[in-house]
């Protein structure tokens, strides 16, 4: 691995994308506080009907994260349609104790003028969008997941000073959002009477092709990839580009071990190939990394 002037990227823990029980969420974060992640994103980003944790609960968790010497970031809903959703977002954004991640354009409206983060569902595809958002207060952006090495390199090269780049480095890929709840749809329930059936699928509901290939995972109004995107396999390249942060997206099991594998590989204590072999045992179906090299997201290098 060639030496560079770039420092080692920090690890971040993305928001929990699934509908886990309240107890499971609190247990999960108690465990995560002991891991080597530097940043923890907290908040419901998928469905406004999921209210097992309220903004107050996430703020309390954020205090704990800060007390543990990590950076808390409050993450917000990815698709804002209803008035009630907009009001909740406004309430979350009115709190100025913590950095906030905007995931819908509405967040930009409320957060403009103070430091904020854009999540992967904000379409930041080029240098002009980046410069424009930096002028509004953007401090860190998570690259849209379909973009790869070439665009990452070009954006990092031309970015304004002081803005950090975060990559979605591990997890089922967030691919699409809809008005329809696909989990309820496939359980023959209406969205208004969903019975919170998404809670039955702690890593999403698997969709396979007619020849049995795992293809997608349904998570309420979000469609994810069935494969788990993994940048560990190309970590030396990622590090060389000067990316500051790497996001690990929570899964219902093995998240702490996955973080350890990334941390050890970043520290040079574990070979990326060997680390990837370990991750393969813990991901729900298979690994992929095609987006990084400009190929289909489902592909592997």
């Amino acid at each position, binding site marked *: 691995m060639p030496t560079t002037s770039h420092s080692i990227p920090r690890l971040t823990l993305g928001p929990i994308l699934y509908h886990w029980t309240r107890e499971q969420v609190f247990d999960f974060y108690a465990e995560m506080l002991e891991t080597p992640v530097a940043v923890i994103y907290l908040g419901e980003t998928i469905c406004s009907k999921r209210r097992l944790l309220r903004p107050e609960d996430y703020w309390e968790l954020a205090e704990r994260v800060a007390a543990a010497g990590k950076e808390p970031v409050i993450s917000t809903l990815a*698709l*804002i*349609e*209803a*008035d009630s959703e*907009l009001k909740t977002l406004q309430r979350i954004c009115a709190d100025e104790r913590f950095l906030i991640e905007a995931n*819908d*354009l*509405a967040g930009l*409206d*409320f957060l403009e003028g103070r430091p904020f983060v854009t999540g992967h569902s904000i*379409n930041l*595809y*080029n*240098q*002009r*969008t*980046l*410069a*424009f*958002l930096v002028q509004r207060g953007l401090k860190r952006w998570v690259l849209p*997941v*379909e*973009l790869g090495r070439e*665009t990452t390199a*070009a*954006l990092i090269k*031309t970015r304004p000073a002081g803005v950090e780049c975060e990559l979605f480095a591990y997890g089922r*890929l967030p*691919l*699409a*959002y*809809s*008005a*329809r*709840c*696909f989990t309820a*749809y*496939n359980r023959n329930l*209406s*969205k*208004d009477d969903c019975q919170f059936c998404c809670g039955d699928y702690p890593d999403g509901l*698997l*969709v*396979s*092709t*007619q*020849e*049995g*290939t795992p*293809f*997608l995972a349904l998570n309420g109004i979000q*469609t994810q*990839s069935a494969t788990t995107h993994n940048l560990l396999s190309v970590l030396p390249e990622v590090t060389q580009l000067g990316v500051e942060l790497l996001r690990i997206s929570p899964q219902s099991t093995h998240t702490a071990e996955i973080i350890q594998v990334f941390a050890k590989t970043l520290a040079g204590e574990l070979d990326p190939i060997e680390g990837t072999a370990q991750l393969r045992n813990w991901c729900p179906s298979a690994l992929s990394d*095609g*987006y990084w090299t*400009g190929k*289909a*997201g*489902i592909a592997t290098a």
Partner: protein
Amino acid sequence: MELVCPAGNLPMLKAAVDHGANAVYIGFRDDTNARHFAGLNFNDKQIREGLNYAHDRKVKVFVAINTYAQPNGWERWTAAVDRAVDLGVDAIILADMGVLDYAAERYPNVNLHLSVQGSATNPAAIGFMHRHFGIKRVVVPRVLSLAQVAHLIEETPVPVEIFGFGSLCVMVEGRCLLSSYACGQSPNTYGACSPAAHVEWRDTPKGQETRLGGVLIERRSLNEPAGYPTLCKGRYDVAGELRHAIEEPTSLNTLDILPGILAAGVSAIKIEGRQRSTRYVSQVTQVWREAIDACQRNPDTFRPKESWHQILAQVSEGAQTTIGPYHRPWH
């Protein structure tokens, strides 16, 4: 309420104008627009002729530059904006904040519309785009119910355009990467969903198979109709059951709720289908012209004519149509 119709080439543009469109939307022949299909779209000479034809008949022409530019190729998007302005089109339909920033700064007097690909679904998002780029219209994604559309119109100073008819995107436009996940190219990056170059059709003993980027997205018996091969409308295995996991091969038709659309204060209604035929544009434009005129005359007693439904059904993709997200139970 303006009727905005699609044109993938000059004969389609003329057909839309002749059959009653108030505006026609078109694109350039590259990946700067979301219907980047082989053989489709306009060169400058065709646009000039189309503009003359439309303007002579008091019809507007909009150019869609509604994909997302990356650093490699950025100049193609700014050049497209320059071209559209030079040609004198009536509005430019944009999605990318960087391209919007460029256009608003360089051409403060040009009409900018926020494309459906810009993913603005609420007053705050639209307000942000309006404040910074002075957008004159927003095309809203197909996720809102009609009640939500009506409420949005009350809450935003920006005139609202909605999709009324055509192929139905199930996901929030501009925020769907399913196509690039399967084949490497998406509407955002390439200007097409499920691009033809990545689609394979094959007859097998198990039935006719459709693959996108090698992924089996549908297998049907030979007597079942084949639709446009978008992966969100294929049949998959969900917990051991074969089903349309995302959506059935259905398309959008809002004719039945036209009085509600008018009452909500919608400024323009858009017909999808720049990739379709001249016949499609002629027939759909004519039906919608008649329907809008009839509904505006007598909104309280308006009922769609059976003949309109028959014509629209003949040109619809898939066997069925739906009111889609405008009707809450669809969600």
